């Protein structure tokens, strides 16, 4: 049995302790925000927050979470009440197939939470450097992160 705190709720789960967190979230908790992209921590599609830090859940064993608090894409907001980062992605129409977008939103959320000031374009590019997108949505994603910083009232 593994105890897991996800999006503010505690769960008791009968899973093998070596199961990657991604499979537990997707298959046991039916949280489909995080995506299986590579299983190798290379692309970022599976990103979740563990105690506020962006973590690649495809290679992160569920037992390693321990008492950590997990937040998934669903834990940030809903279509009716999106988080500022989600709001900005919707406003910029920053998704094509959208498969990588979970990772972009989660990485950007961790990145913006950790800073006071509004990031430069080059800082945003660096922050997302290890997140891959195949559709070529990058320009809109950068614009969305800038917009999110403004929505969150980050200073210049």
């Amino acid at each position, binding site marked *: 049995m593994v105890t897991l705190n996800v999006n503010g709720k505690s769960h008791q789960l009968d899973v093998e302790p070596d199961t990657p967190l991604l499979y537990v979230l997707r298959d046991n908790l039916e949280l489909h925000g995080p995506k299986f992209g590579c*299983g190798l921590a290379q692309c970022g599609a599976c990103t979740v927050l563990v105690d506020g830090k962006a973590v690649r859940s495809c290679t992160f064993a569920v037992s390693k979470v321990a008492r950590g608090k997990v937040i998934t894409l669903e834990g940030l907001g809903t279509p009716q009440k999106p988080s500022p980062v989600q709001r900005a992605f919707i406003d910029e129409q920053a998704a094509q197939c*959208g498969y990588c*977008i979970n990772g972009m939103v989660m990485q950007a959320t961790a990145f913006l939470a950790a800073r006071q000031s509004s990031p430069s374009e080059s800082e945003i590019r660096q922050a*997302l*450097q290890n997140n891959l997108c195949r559709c070529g*949505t990058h*320009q809109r994603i950068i614009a969305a992160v800038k917009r999110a910083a403004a929505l969150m009232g980050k200073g210049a």
Partner: protein
Amino acid sequence: MATLETSRRDFLIGTGTLVVSFTLASSLPQDALAQTAGKTKPVALDQVDSFLAIHRDGTVTAYTGKVDLGTGIRIALPQMVAEELDVPMEKVKLVEGDTALTPDQGPTWGSLSIQIGGVQLRQAAATARKALVEMAVQKLGIPSADLAVKDGVVFVRAEPKRRVAYVELIGDKSFELKVDKDAPLKSPKEHTIVGQSMPRPDVPGKVTGTHTYMQDFRLPGMLHARVIRPPAIGATLEGVDESSIKPIKGARVVRQESFLAVVAESEWAAVKAARALKATWSKWEGLPEQSKLWEHVRATKIAKDDIAVDRGDPKAAIAGAAKKLKATYDFAVHTHGSMGPACAVADVKGGKAEIWSPSQAPHWLRKEVAAVLQVDPNDVHIRYLDGAGCYGRNGHEDATCDAALISKMIGKPVRVQWMREDEHGWDPKGPPTLIEITAGLDPQGNIVGWDSELWVPKADITEWPRTLAATLAGIPQKEAINPGNVHRNLDPSYPFAHQKAVAHRLDSTPFRPSWIRTPGRMQNTYANEVFIDECAAAAGADPVQYRLRYLTDPRGIAVLRAAASMAKWDSRPSPRREQSGSIARGRGIAYVKYENARTYCAGVAEVEVNTQTGAIRCTRFYVAHDCGQIINPDGVRAQIEGQIIQTVSRTLKEELKWSRSRVTSVDWASYPILRFAEVPEVHMELINRPAEPPWGVGEPAACLPPPAISNAVFDAVGIRLRSVPFTPPKLTALKGTAARS
């Protein structure tokens, strides 16, 4: 007429009761279910009811065989329907890619979803609108000239209170009408929906995790499967040690000849079993040595020659020319590189198959699955669900056939999820492409003759590529090769008096080929547009001015001038003089009329070349684009941005690697793609021509980056790059060839 009995009960069994969140069930109004109760839903392309249903609640369901692969047709097609039918946008729901409910409008390929799929829907809507107005004439006793329509209500123009709503005229009844190709379309001047940037309905769900992807779909009692592919492409399975997965709870082996898979109740158990399973395979080393690929291509047997253009006498013109130029261009093998590996769910029972798939071609796939299961296509029902972007035929269809075969073998619903190495290693590939061009120039540097040859695999264009499931399981199938229409755009987009272009269709190619975004048109435009730049340099002419010597099509001239103007094109011959420091800067242009038949585009690349390391960065890309009538400008912009960025990645970085046995580019480390820091700024100008037909948008602009970047690098450092991808070692190796600036 291909039809399938659908009843309310079938719908509920097929969707609602079985799954927690299933897009069709939630997107289909209850009236649509009631309407089809006990009836046959027509799907023939000539019937209005195949495309449209108007319900009692005032909503409209539009049915399309095309699918939204992240391209935005989920909003653009309803815009075309709402506009032509005169109903509010929010009333239109779209059903995509369900083989029982939608007309077969062809696979979602070739930049044809709007141009063909949308135009068919629009004509059905125009026919419906005309019929509804005629019904209103009867009901109101007023001639049609005195009637107007707004928001699904027909009213007397002089007396708007005299009115009748569509629902009162037709609500939930079928039209029983053939699509009238002459039903009048609205004047573009009246358009209030078409031509507007409207947000896509799927974006909020994709951004918040509520959108149902294929990978999220589950059936009760379903098992998770993983396929185990041979360690060498042509190897056969000699033995399986089933005891090797015994410690993994609930996991079992599924095998038919060399088709090998494991199934388990939990997904992680299936993954672990696939990794743990011990199997022995025969040896196979049938791939050509990678370093000798182009010799291999030249030595491959030619099945036939296709002539793309043959005008005048280019051989004589070139022989008598003042100057002769010849160049060879090659383009590496590419993989689709979808962010999510392929996935599908199949439930095969009693010879009937219920399938959920992210395929770009549900109607085609139905026949493929039927061939694998050896059943009638009418016993296969495919429903589309969004996968990760596929950009052509990637692994989706193979994974679907895998799921169908495994489900048939074990008699349970099965979900197949490919792993990363399955997708990179086993999706069909964009074939290696080689092009050679010869031209003759007169003393003023004008092109007097153009002669080009292309080496590409032959194409059984109406056949799907061999499926892995059938190949490995020993199921009979046609030995078809189909890389798509890769000969298109071999003829340059300039009407030279003497020109010939021949496609040598090769009998075989190292990897099972398929189409990857802009198949052939990208490679051919790359060669043509670099070569004309080489001619311009030989003539000492500015590359834009030089193209204008030959371009006669006013829409082509307009995009070329617009791209140059946006980029503040500095008119002069290449290469550029006065470079200093270790970073050299250059600009290059490219132009194409897609398939020499539709969408016009021109692009300017700006590059920075590190003269020490040979690294190339594309910093900005400018595109001018004319696709005729624009349905949704923001959707067009998104498609162009995506094509430029994706193709900059393909141009600068991408090349499949292999050993004599197998693909060795099996993940993102061994097949790198463009990252954020390398992404260019994309700027564009859309030329909207509302009175013209709406043409394709998803592929044409992807022709531009390879030639524009090659031309920009020449401008920067005087080196011609004729081999995609343009990697630093290739540039460094050519340093001695730099043209003097």
